């Protein structure tokens, strides 16, 4: 039995969580166990502690029994700690005198046998800790009433517009010369077949025109300091070599520029100039000069065609990189996704056969503004038969285990577009499972069937140009088991479209570190809760929206973007945030002035008072990590809410069932 403290009264509340806890943990036994512990004034269990009646139970006890501490043995503190802290507060108990004991995520959900014993140990530890919890005061600080949106694809655009429409200042930072993202590259969108540009470009223009949005393209966030409500972000603005304030976007410069490079926007299928806008509707409609292809830059002034022809004198080769600092209350990360490189799977022939292309390349081929003016032509020919291969790099342990969620649908869209543009064309879908789960998706699938698209269930093993019969000559053969028949088919086609996985950006790890976020196992950034907090993150005040969080289609991306905007607005419109009360504090009497702690602090929150030879912690800067506490040789630093006493008491009581004196041999 834990001894506890004689002078405190603790209430213990064991939650059944329906059968989530009670199905595995004997809640009656655990409650009885709690009741027997010293310091425990009352122990109860209830079906759902987080429900109104459950909360009322706790409140009543606090008020009537005058509890000094509350232990709620239920789910993870990451779920309901805020709920029960509020309960305590409303009943007049300092919220820091609550301890959440995690007997669901870390006990009932993961153990079949021994869950009750483990729950007892955890509760024993919780009671012990609760005896030593001290009341703390949270302080409020005002928030910076602005939002930083990182990434100018459809997610970033929608989030920025919504926040700006609510009257708040937005800084929208985009790495590329124009906003628009991947959506700007798409031709039509499923299942409605809206033209992607038609629905996107008005939003892009609205961003440019919005008085509350400060757009920074060709720029990257390089540093983030501060905390929720008060972030300081440093943005690196790369030199465009074109003055945005002078340029009218007339286009004479790129018309006259003699130097060409592959167009990134057209996936290398077309060309652009060394001074260019990625596409005609680019926002801002101001070109950039690509220093890797501009001969003026490469060969020290030997060209200057743009300089000569620009009537406004907007070309400025003296521009240099600039650092801009902004202060914001919330950050929305919308940095999108990368397309898996299918050349990793050599047997599918990408990069070996010119008529094996990726879905994004096909989008550009199909697009009226694309390199072929919308004519589907590869290797100089219009294909009469097309094979579309699903799940390239998706649903495969060697590459990505997950399903990329959009490929089935855009593959159907492709089939429709091919049928529409090329009369009599045969289209074969090589799929494993058709996943048409969204609104209007199944109907679209049906439509493709009526349009005469052929569906072959099987993951192709190979795309080869080896002909073994006359009708195969000059064709690409997709070799695949038709799994519904149980026979290997060789399907001759003129073009193969691969549907590569959507994958986390190659620099997702850097982005995660920059904003202090976590990545899930698939590399995408991790939301705080998969269902209930889909855009919040472990870092308060930072939200993830769109494909940076995982593969998704445009409707889902937009929905998340708006959710992110709502989260950010809710945060900054409140006007203030509560600072963490669980900070470290120096016991001046005990401090020996050794200065070991000073350089350890990652937030430079510790200063040294030379006159008094004492360390001092700035509570506004301290985030309560406790590194200094563990390092202090004089034990003069106290981690509030995680004091040595609290943790040691917790550890001791955690082993409450450690066997008594063992048998001697």
């Amino acid at each position: 039995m834990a001894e506890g403290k004689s002078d405190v009264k603790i209430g213990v509340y064991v939650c059944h969580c329906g059968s989530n806890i009670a199905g595995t943990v004997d809640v009656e036994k655990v409650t009885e166990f709690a009741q027997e512990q010293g310091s425990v004034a009352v122990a109860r269990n209830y079906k759902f502690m987080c429900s109104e009646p459950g909360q009322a139970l706790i409140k009543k006890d606090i008020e009537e029994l005058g509890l000094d501490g509350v232990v709620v043995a239920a789910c993870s503190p990451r779920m309901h700690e805020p709920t029960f802290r509020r309960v305590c507060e409303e009943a007049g108990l300092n919220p820091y005198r609550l301890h959440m004991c995690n007997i669901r995520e870390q006990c009932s959900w993961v153990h079949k046998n021994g869950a009750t014993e483990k729950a007892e140990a955890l509760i024993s530890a919780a009671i012990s800790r609760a005896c030593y919890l001290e009341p703390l005061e949270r302080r409020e600080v005002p928030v910076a009433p602005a939002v930083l949106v990182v990434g100018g694809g459809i997610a970033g655009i929608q989030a920025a517009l919504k926040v700006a429409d609510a009257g708040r200042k937005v800084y929208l930072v985009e790495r590329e010369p124009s906003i628009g993202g991947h959506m700007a590259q798409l031709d039509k969108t499923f299942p409605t077949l809206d033209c992607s540009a038609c629905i996107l470009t008005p939003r892009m223009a609205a961003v440019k025109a919005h008085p509350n949005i400060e757009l920074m393209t060709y720029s990257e966030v390089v540093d983030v300091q501060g905390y929720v409500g008060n972030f300081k972000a440093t943005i690196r603005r790369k030199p465009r070599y074109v003055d945005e304030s002078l340029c009218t976007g007339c286009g004479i410069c790129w018309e006259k520029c003699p130097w060409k490079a592959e167009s990134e926007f057209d996936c290398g299928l077309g060309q652009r100039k060394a001074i260019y806008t990625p596409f005609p509707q680019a926002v801002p409609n101001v070109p950039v000069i690509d220093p890797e292809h501009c001969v003026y830059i490469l060969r020290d002034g030997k060209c200057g065609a743009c300089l000569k022809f620009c009537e406004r004198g907007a070309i400025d080769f003296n521009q240099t990189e600039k650092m801009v600092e902004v202060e914001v209350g919330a950050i929305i990360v919308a940095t999108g996704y990368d397309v898996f490189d299918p050349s990793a799977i050599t047997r599918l022939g990408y990069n070996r056969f010119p008529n094996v292309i990726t879905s994004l390349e096909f989008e550009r081929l199909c697009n009226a503004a694309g390199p072929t003016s919308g004519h589907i032509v590869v290797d100089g020919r219009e294909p009469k038969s097309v094979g579309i291969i699903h799940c390239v790099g998706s649903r495969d342990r060697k590459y990505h285990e997950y399903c990329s969620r959009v490929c089935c649908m855009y593959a159907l869209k492709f089939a429709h577009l091919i049928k529409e543009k090329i009369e009599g064309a045969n289209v074969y879908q090589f799929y494993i499972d058709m996943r048409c789960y969204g609104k209007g998706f199944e109907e679209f699938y049906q439509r493709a069937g009526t349009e005469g698209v052929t569906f072959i269930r099987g993951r192709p093993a190979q795309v080869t140009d080896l002909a073994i019969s006359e009708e195969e000559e000059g064709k690409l053969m997709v070799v695949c088991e038709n799994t519904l028949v149980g026979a290997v088919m060789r399907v001759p086609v003129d073009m193969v479209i691969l549907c590569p996985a959507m994958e986390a950006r190659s620099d997702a790890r850097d982005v995660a570190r920059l904003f202090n976020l976590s990545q899930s196992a698939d590399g995408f950034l991790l939301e705080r809760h998969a269902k209930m907090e889909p855009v919040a993150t472990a870092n308060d005040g930072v939200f993830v929206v769109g494909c940076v969080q995982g593969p998704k289609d445009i409707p889902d991306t937009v929905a998340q973007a708006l959710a992110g905007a709502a989260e950010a607005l809710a945060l900054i419109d409140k006007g203030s945030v509560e600072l963490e009360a669980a900070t470290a504090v120096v016991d001046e009497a005990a401090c020996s002035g050794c200065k070991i702690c000073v350089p350890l602090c990652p937030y430079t929150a510790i200063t040294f008072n030379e006159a008094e030879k004492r360390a001092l912690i700035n509570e506004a800067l301290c985030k309560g990590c406790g590194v200094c506490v563990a390092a202090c040789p004089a034990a003069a630093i106290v981690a509030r809410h995680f004091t040595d006493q609290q943790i040691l008491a917790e550890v001791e009581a955690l082993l409450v069932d450690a066997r008594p004196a063992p048998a001697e041999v």
Partner: protein
Amino acid sequence: MRYVYYPGCSASGTSKEAEESLQAAMGALGVEWTELEDWNCCGAAIAIGTSYLLSVALPARNLALAERAESDLVTGCSRCFLNLIRAIHYTHENASVHEKVNELLAETGVQYSGKARLRHLLDVIVNDIGLDVVAERVTQPLDGLRVAPYYGCCQGMWTYAQFDSVEDPHCFDQLLATLGAQVVDYPLKTACCGGTLSMSRRSVGAKLIGDLLAAAGDADCIVTACPLCLFNLNSFQREAGRIKGTHFNIPVLFLTQMMGMAFGLPKKALGLQRNAVPVDGLYKKIAAGATVSSGAASASRPK
């Protein structure tokens, strides 16, 4: 350089030319080859049809012998390589497999710890000996000879993962180019030749061989990295032709035979008289090619 090598049954019988030419070519390169003492059959593709444990333990015994000889083990047979590396992989991944294998090996007085490293002949030639050394030894460049390298399927799994792309290997191509040959790329270069199906299920085996021979197209010859494939591709051309409705007569050589030709070694030393499909035509082509492109070929060879 000194290597302990595992010849395998094919190379010591039905594909003797592989073994003879291997000795000759390595001798020409100044590499010392010692045969693994007391080696046994790796079980080919047959042991797996009789006993799971034997299919791992038979190759593992050879690895245990290599450990006893305190040496890495090299093999020039892809089928053997696959069985050997499978044994390494499985005993490493599954402790109960390892335990049972050692239980079996105890009967022959050896134990396998998992230390022995396995190398493929191609890996040794390309990465240890080096293509530059091979190039220096070339006295009769294979100018004008169109050669189709046949890596063999067995290399697909773990083989090239160690030293080349698994699905699209290139080291063999590079080696042949170094010898001055014109390398023919064809899609079935890593496909299975059917292994023992040529014996156990002739109609299937011959079809697979026929597809392969046809895929190599207008190559003057096929070069294999596996004595078992060498036997298959050489011995069943008539049966394959019957199934494919054509007539095959394409010389198939082992890779060290091809090297030996470029090194100017005597035919007999390379066992060239043993190849089922005569190879004399190749010498004529080389001679003709040399007169056409005198000197130019050496420049086109990679470094």
